[in-house]
């Protein structure tokens, strides 16, 4: 039978496999044979055999025997000797890795333009970015190169590309998904999560990868995942933070579709009211760009040309290390390493890093207070639709502002779900749903009901 990889959901694929209407190898080949004109993959895999659902994997996630570069030249020839726990979990469910998807170097960026291997293209408009850092995963799912994918999210790297590519993406609650075997960026923020075509697929993949892992001591026991099926939102209390909706800098087309989705939620039975996060939006970005680079400067210290990765020779040890790091890291990791080193250095620690950690408490408390009255808060995921290549690449601060709405909840360790809510001038707009810690099931419920009511077609118009 012909397999329409653009349209087939993972749930449909699972049913076809279980009914033996297609074989595992036929299904894998349907994706593997599709031309990757989006540069979604950095590496594509042979079919490992079996009859499970294929899966694309962001290239920061370690895969035994399969190159894992994190989008960096410093890891160009790195081949992990063990699987990340999320990959082990996926394999236990029969999932088969299709390939490793493109990412901004070390997951630092919002467009994949920081990848050392060139950017990925947005399947809706190949002259535009797919978002980042997980642009490769979102482009692969959107472009029919994978039924679903794993991403990682530090400040918006799953949600934002899902928004820009019209897909569903979950950044899970901190501690629900193991990071063992995942290339570390900012350890108090990094989370692995699913990118999918539907909310149900997203929930199913989350159920596969989540759970306590003895190899990651930050993981906890996770509530049982409920695959959503209800089409109403009766009793759900939705908060609309005024600092994240109808504010300057958000494209009018984005605001219009987000408003429509909120009105639709109300018509499905939800109670909608305004709320306020007065400090989280203003101080989230500055707080994040101290905490994350500080942790990155520590995590990326391991790339020293000794145990793995690139080495550039020098006359002595120090010269070798410095040359290796200069040659191996691109501009964005260098910037963040230096910002982090500066913020942690003697004389500046209190003014920058210690202060940012206190601001983080303020942001967490502000969210806690809002969730006493609401089950979910909503906003645009991204202030804009997908932007053209080069639009922000020369200005690091402009790029950082792409994540202004996704960052605050990441600092508070909260789960966030992006669902597509429509097209503005032919490009997808995403709605961000944020819940309290461990409220993934609530997000899936709301996401699914809205997805059904909106009837968004996740296949890019030009490919239909």
């Amino acid at each position: 039978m012909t397999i329409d990889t653009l349209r087939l959901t993972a749930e449909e694929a699972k049913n076809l496999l279980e009914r033996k209407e297609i074989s595992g190898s036929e299904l894998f080949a349907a994706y593997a044979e599709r031309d990757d004109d989006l540069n979604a993959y950095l590496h594509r895999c042979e079919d490992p055999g079996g009859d499970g659902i294929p899966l694309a994997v962001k290239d920061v996630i370690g895969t035994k025997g399969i190159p894992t570069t994190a989008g960096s030249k410093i890891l160009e020839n790195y081949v992990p000797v063990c699987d990340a726990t999320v990959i082990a979990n996926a394999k236990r469910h029969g999932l088969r890795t299709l390939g490793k998807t493109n990412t901004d170097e070390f997951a630092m960026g919002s467009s994949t333009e920081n990848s050392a291997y060139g950017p990925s293209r947005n399947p809706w408009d190949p002259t535009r970015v797919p978002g980042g850092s997980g642009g490769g995963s979102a482009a692969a799912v959107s472009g029919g190169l994978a039924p679903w994918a794993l991403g990682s999210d530090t400040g918006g790297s799953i949600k934002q590309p899902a928004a820009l590519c019209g897909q569903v993406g979950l950044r899970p609650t901190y501690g629900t998904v193991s990071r063992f075997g995942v290339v570390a960026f900012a350890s108090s923020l990094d989370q692995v999560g699913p990118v999918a075509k539907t909310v149900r697929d997203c929930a199913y993949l989350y159920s596969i990868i989540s759970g306590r892992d003895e190899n990651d001591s930050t993981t906890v026991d996770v509530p049982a995942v409920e695959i959503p099926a209800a089409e109403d939102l009766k009793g759900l209390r939705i908060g609309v933070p005024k600092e994240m909706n109808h504010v300057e800098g958000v494209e009018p087309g984005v605001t219009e579709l987000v408003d429509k989705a909120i009105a639709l939620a109300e018509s499905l039975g939800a109670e909608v009211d305004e709320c306020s996060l007065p400090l989280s939006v203003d101080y989230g970005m500055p707080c994040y760009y101290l905490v994350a680079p500080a942790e990155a400067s520590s995590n990326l210290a391991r790339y020293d040309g000794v145990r793995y990765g690139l080495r550039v020779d020098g006359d002595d040890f120090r010269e070798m290390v410095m040359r290796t790091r200069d040659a191996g890291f691109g501009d964005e990791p260098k910037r963040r390493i230096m910002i982090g080193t500066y913020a942690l250095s003697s004389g500046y620690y209190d003014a920058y890093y210690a202060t940012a950690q206190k601001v983080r408490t303020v942001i967490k408390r502000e969210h806690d207070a809002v969730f006493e009255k609401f089950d979910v808060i909503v906003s645009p995921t991204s202030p804009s639709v997908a932007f053209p290549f080069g639009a922000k690449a020369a200005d690091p601060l402009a790029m950082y502002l792409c994540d202004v709405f996704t960052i605050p909840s990441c600092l508070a360790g909260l789960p966030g779900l992006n669902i597509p809510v429509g097209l503005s001038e032919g490009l997808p707009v995403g709605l961000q749903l944020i819940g309290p810690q461990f409220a993934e099931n609530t997000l899936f419920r709301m996401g699914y009901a809205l997805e059904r009511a909106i009837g968004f077609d996740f296949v890019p118009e030009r490919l239909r």
Partner: protein
Amino acid sequence: MFHVEVAMARITRDEVLHVARLARLELTDDEVAKFQEQLSDILEAVSKVSELDLSDVPPTAHPLEIANAWAEDEPRPCLTHEEAFANAPDVDDHHFRTPPA
């Protein structure tokens, strides 16, 4: 007063070189000039954190309220020597080899 001073500061060329040395990055002259400009802009933006009165606020290092996640102290399978050295740029038997310190 201190906070205002920090917020206004532009990072100097010497500070870029100092930070790069701490971070073990050997920068070219072009990189130093570019990063001096960009890091100044970024530091100015992030200095906003100093506007708030945070005297009674404790720091958050980690968003979950868990502490002391102990594991049983018992031997488990680990990487073989071959696996541990598989990605090393230079190996001498069972040692990582580097230039002299």
